[in-house]
């Protein structure tokens, strides 16, 4: 094989791998991305029931209901609109009423959001950024309001 032919083999295998990767990425990006909405955005955009979504906001005070077994219901609010969430499973350690939360799942026909995973924040001082942004859009959240305990930052 000449140098030219060898190079051709090399380049074509590189192109093949790359185009495979590009194909896979485009395919995966079409079906496997999940949009994030705050409660107000959710009400406004009204996505198709069954579409996978992430929603985030504050857990409304007094809304947490423990149903039989492992099921819970709570409302996520951004102080303007709210959405009812149903979830079965263990709530994260930092889940609390009045605190930030992110839930992933899909909206049902009955406008109840069926979550299959619920995330709270990692640290009691900070709000999940997505939640903070969703709240900021509604003018509820001010930067720095919660950062009382961090004088140096």
């Amino acid at each position, binding site marked *: 094989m000449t140098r030219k032919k060898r190079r051709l083999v090399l380049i074509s295998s590189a192109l093949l791998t790359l185009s495979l990767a590009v194909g896979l990425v485009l395919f995966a990006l079409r079906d496997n991305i999940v949009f994030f*909405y705050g409660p107000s955005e959710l009400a406004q955009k009204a996505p198709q029931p069954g579409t996978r979504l992430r929603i985030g906001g504050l857990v409304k005070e007094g809304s947490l209901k423990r149903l039989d077994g492992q099921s819970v219901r709570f409302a996520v609010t951004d102080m303007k609109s709210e959405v009812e969430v149903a979830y079965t499973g263990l709530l994260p350690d*930092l889940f609390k009423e009045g605190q930030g939360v992110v839930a992933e799942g899909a909206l049902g026909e009955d406008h109840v959001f069926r979550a299959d995973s619920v995330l709270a924040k990692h640290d009691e001082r900070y709000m999940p950024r997505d939640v903070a942004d969703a709240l900021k859009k509604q003018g509820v959240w001010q930067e720095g309001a919660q950062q009382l305990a961090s004088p140096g930052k």
Partner: protein
Amino acid sequence: MIVETGHYALVLALALALVNSVLPIWGSVTGDRRLMAVAPSVALMGFGLVAYAFFALTYAHVASDFSLANVVENSHSAKPLIYKISGVWGNHEGSMLLWVLVLALFAAAVALFSSSMPDDLRANVLAVQSWIASAFLLFILLTSNPFARLANAPAEGNDLNPLLQDPGLAIHPPLLYLGYVGLSITYSFAAAALISGRIDAVFARFVRPWTLLAWICLTLGIAMGSYWAYYTLGWGGFWFWDPVENASLMPWLAATALLHCTAVMEKREALKIWTIFLAILAFSLSLIGTFLVRSGVLTSVHAFASDPQRGIFILLILVVFIGGSLALFAWRAGGLKQGGLFAPVSREGALVLNNLLLTTCCATVFIGTLYPLALEALTGEKISVGPPFFNLTFAPLFAPLFVLMPIGQNLAWKRGDFFGAAQRLIVAIGAGLIAMLALAAWRGGPVVSVVLSGLAIYVIVGSFADLGRRLFVGGGATAIMGAGQRALRLPRQAFGTAFAHAGLGVTLLGLAATGWGAEKITALRPGDEVEIGPYQLTFESVQPRAGPNFAERIGRTAIRSSGVLIATIEPSTRFYPARKMNRSEAGIATIGLGQVYMSIADVAANGSVNARVFWKPLVSLIWIGALIMAFGGCLSLSDRGFRIGVARRAAKAAASSPQPAE
């Protein structure tokens, strides 16, 4: 007082780094040996100063000096000593200091252990390393000063985030940084080689041990992080395709590719341009990882406080170093000589394919990690890219690597024989197929698990095929007698390769076996029983217990197998009063290679406890595999070929004999 001297030491370290950024390069340009000789001693002094600064901060944390903002925010007088020490890097400022410490450590190591290197190469390497150090020292001093004092010192600190109060914090960040930041050395080597314009087998020989060292630490650091997440998050997951995890996986993929292509460059002087490019890429990805994790663009336990000013500073560093090196690359790479020739089917060809797949995998991870950020910046739309994306893109591109790995090992350099290699792997292929059939008949279950297990067995056996052939020459008793002697004579690198590859196979086996696991979420009262996999669990009691800086509630659970008690686990939920924060601690019993995993949540009003119980067969293999990979790396590192004397002789030989024309 010690705190102020620590701060001062950092300023001095910056001054020295600036000196070392200029003088050695100037020396190598003008051929002034005295200026070049400045580099090693200044690098050592710089390391000493940064180490002192680090010591000063550690001292403040251990002594609970609450006049320091950093200590107040991240420590508490009741915190156990191990977390007082590891808490030093459990925050933004301290972790950046650790980052720079590792950077200085590698520079000092090069200064000490590379006396055989050509003077100008060493001077340039240390100078480039000093550029990086200057940038990050400036970053610390201007935006993230760990030594900032408070005017009114409070009596007590805020405590460390409970999620971080874990032995994992003592091990995972230092190891990860040794890997992550260790790659800075390969970057410095690449930049230095581009500046001096001399890129040959000798260069590959010098850069390879450093790459290997960084790779070993990175492998262990990622594995440790994954195990930590596994036992502390309570979901039983060990890899979440979280952007922060991806930030460490990308440099690992690039470093793995680099490791393989330096082999080609060292043996055959081929792929020079590509090797240099990968060396730049690997550290660039480390820098991008640092940016993602430290700038606060991501929400994660790793992103401590977010401050836009810091993000912009790191972004600036990123642009200068990645952009600068790529510009240097574009300017110089064109002038490189063509390397040795090889047929597509050959050891080199296999390694090229390996590189192609690894870098493509890396690219998909890169896209999956940064696409959401880019989309949000451009359109304001928030999306998340999770496991389904990576399962669809990364997995199909990585899977061929498992098939090709043993084949590549059995191909000859220059021109290989594919069918010959396949023939040598007949035992491995057979073992894989038998394992598949046996598992399908015995366990059944998901097809993916069966197929991947077979593939894993093939990789494990196949990794040793080449070694076995070289050890047991001929047949019968004499072959076995001679094997011991031959084993001693074989280069340890051959063993290293075999173990590292087998380790990846072992990890794959652990991953494949997750398909046979079981998971249950139930509410339990004391006395209740749960059946999980082959075991019966009895939830015995819930008891309160006081820890040093937390109160916990432990749920004692007995694990029995057909009536016989095997183990008792104590999953717990902890409450840390200083931060008013809950955290659960999973109860894990390792039985054979599998694990029973249980985490509990708060006690409900009716006295029952919500629990999550898993049976995870062979799960420990995931991390044991990583240990085996790292062991293989250490074997290679101890190879005679890597020792300094050999490199020196090679360098001399290269210098004395004129390069043959190609």
